[in-house]
């Protein structure tokens, strides 16, 4: 991927298949926010959404906004299309991003606006939101420096 070249964000393609547990996440994304489930009893975040807090089994779980800037934990350039829908999308970047405000969570996401040679684990990344109407809400991350 060359500097400045954007790939289409692909995570909005299949939104109709989403589970109700993920609705608050996508509603937040539709408002250009990032939020995760957090237990109000023990204060711990968890991901993916579960029926009860997996740390203390409390059902007092609420969604909590998190600063949509994080750190690149790992990434891969996916070159093989796992499914017909992805044939026109490869190659694209999938990443794990961590957040200082949500310890323990690693968010699966796409990287956009990537200069591949400058990608480094640990580099700061920032959320890119698009689609404000909730139904087509999408989120990806771009490097904060080096691109």
């Amino acid at each position: 991927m060359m500097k400045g070249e954007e790939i289409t964000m692909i995570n909005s393609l299949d939104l109709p298949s989403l589970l109700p547990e993920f609705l608050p996440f996508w509603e937040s994304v539709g408002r250009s926010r990032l939020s995760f489930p957090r237990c109000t009893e023990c204060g711990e975040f968890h991901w993916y959404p579960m029926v009860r807090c997996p740390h203390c089994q409390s059902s007092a779980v609420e969604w909590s906004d998190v600063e949509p800037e994080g750190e690149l934990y790992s990434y891969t350039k996916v070159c093989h299309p796992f499914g017909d829908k992805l044939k026109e999308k490869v190659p694209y970047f999938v990443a794990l991003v961590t957040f200082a405000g949500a310890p323990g969570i690693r968010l699966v996401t796409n990287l956009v606006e990537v200069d591949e040679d400058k990608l480094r684990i640990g580099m700061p990344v920032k959320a890119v939101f698009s689609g404000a109407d909730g139904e087509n809400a999408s989120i990806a991350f771009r490097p904060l420096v080096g691109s």
Partner: protein
Amino acid sequence: MSHHDPVCIVGIGETPPVRRSDKNLRQLVIDASIEAIADAGLSPSDIDGIVTDSVIMPNSVPHEYVAAQLGIDRTFDAALSYGGAGIVCAPMLAEMAIRAGRAKNVLCYFGVDWGSIPAGPYGFHDLYPAKTAYEKPFGFSGQPSYFALWARRYMHEYGLKEEDLAMIAVNQRKNALLTGRSQARSELTLEDYMNSRVISDPLRVPDCCLISDGAGAFVMTSAERAKDLRKPPVNVLGVGFAMETMTGDDIFTQKPDLMHIPGAAEAGRQACERSGISLDDVDFAEIYDCFTISCLMQIEDIGFCKKGEAADFLRSKGTTVDGGFPVNTHGGLLSYSYRLGVEHVVEAVRQLRGEAGANQVKNARIGLVGGLSMPDYGVAILGR
């Protein structure tokens, strides 16, 4: 039977390693089962217990189908975990049944038709809701991408090189070609590896297991009954089963430490404790090599070497069948076939009987089999 008498594997069977079989999964499982029972010198009517995994087989070739097809009047059946951990730990359930007097001769079987069915192994992960609903829309599906994230991070933390992953793939291909029947038939050099197609970087085609149709089976009985059977018994010295308490959705990305597989460490510890065997005594290992990176990590987590040191350890030992620490003596899931580890158990028995042929490890007396089914792990230590 005495508490100290081992329970034994006395018969093995497997269908030929192939990408696509002209037989369906039921035929494949029955073929492998009949072969294993005959190999033991038993008749199907001698079998009174059946063990398999608890997810894949019950939904494709269930216990009662196998029993009906073979005429097995069973007093015991059981299932544990899924795939690799399930079939590697099947000897644990069979042992419990035999020791408790619930069954005399137990058939363990497993097979997949992921070489033929649409979406194959990728489709299997659709059973996990968050993968389907959240991850797939990001183009994050397909097991190579999960393990690519691990590999990239591992490279960052421990300085692993592409050449290190290549070493595992190249050595296993050498082992595979010696068998004369492996699914992968072409030689693989370091140069071939470096020129191979990238799947999900840093993982290339040779880093990823094959996709196969096929089945394997083995028969277990007591040491006392084993004396009268056709083949020399292989003793089940100790089995361990452990896991990380996370869902199948979370385990590839959210586990607290992405670089450790704690189930492998604990299952390995249990198997060593039960068998009284030290890892130093292990002559060869059949490790669940769904990917080069996961094979390497399991070798560390089981405890053969420290975290971050597997590449140097394996390079210094040598992992081909003539090396100091042969790993995946039949070529493994990478080069022999991908039947989720049942072929690892069958191969370990072959090695311990001295029946392996050109890929025989000299003086193989103790073998360790590791089976991974994230988040579960199984270790079986077998010996003669």
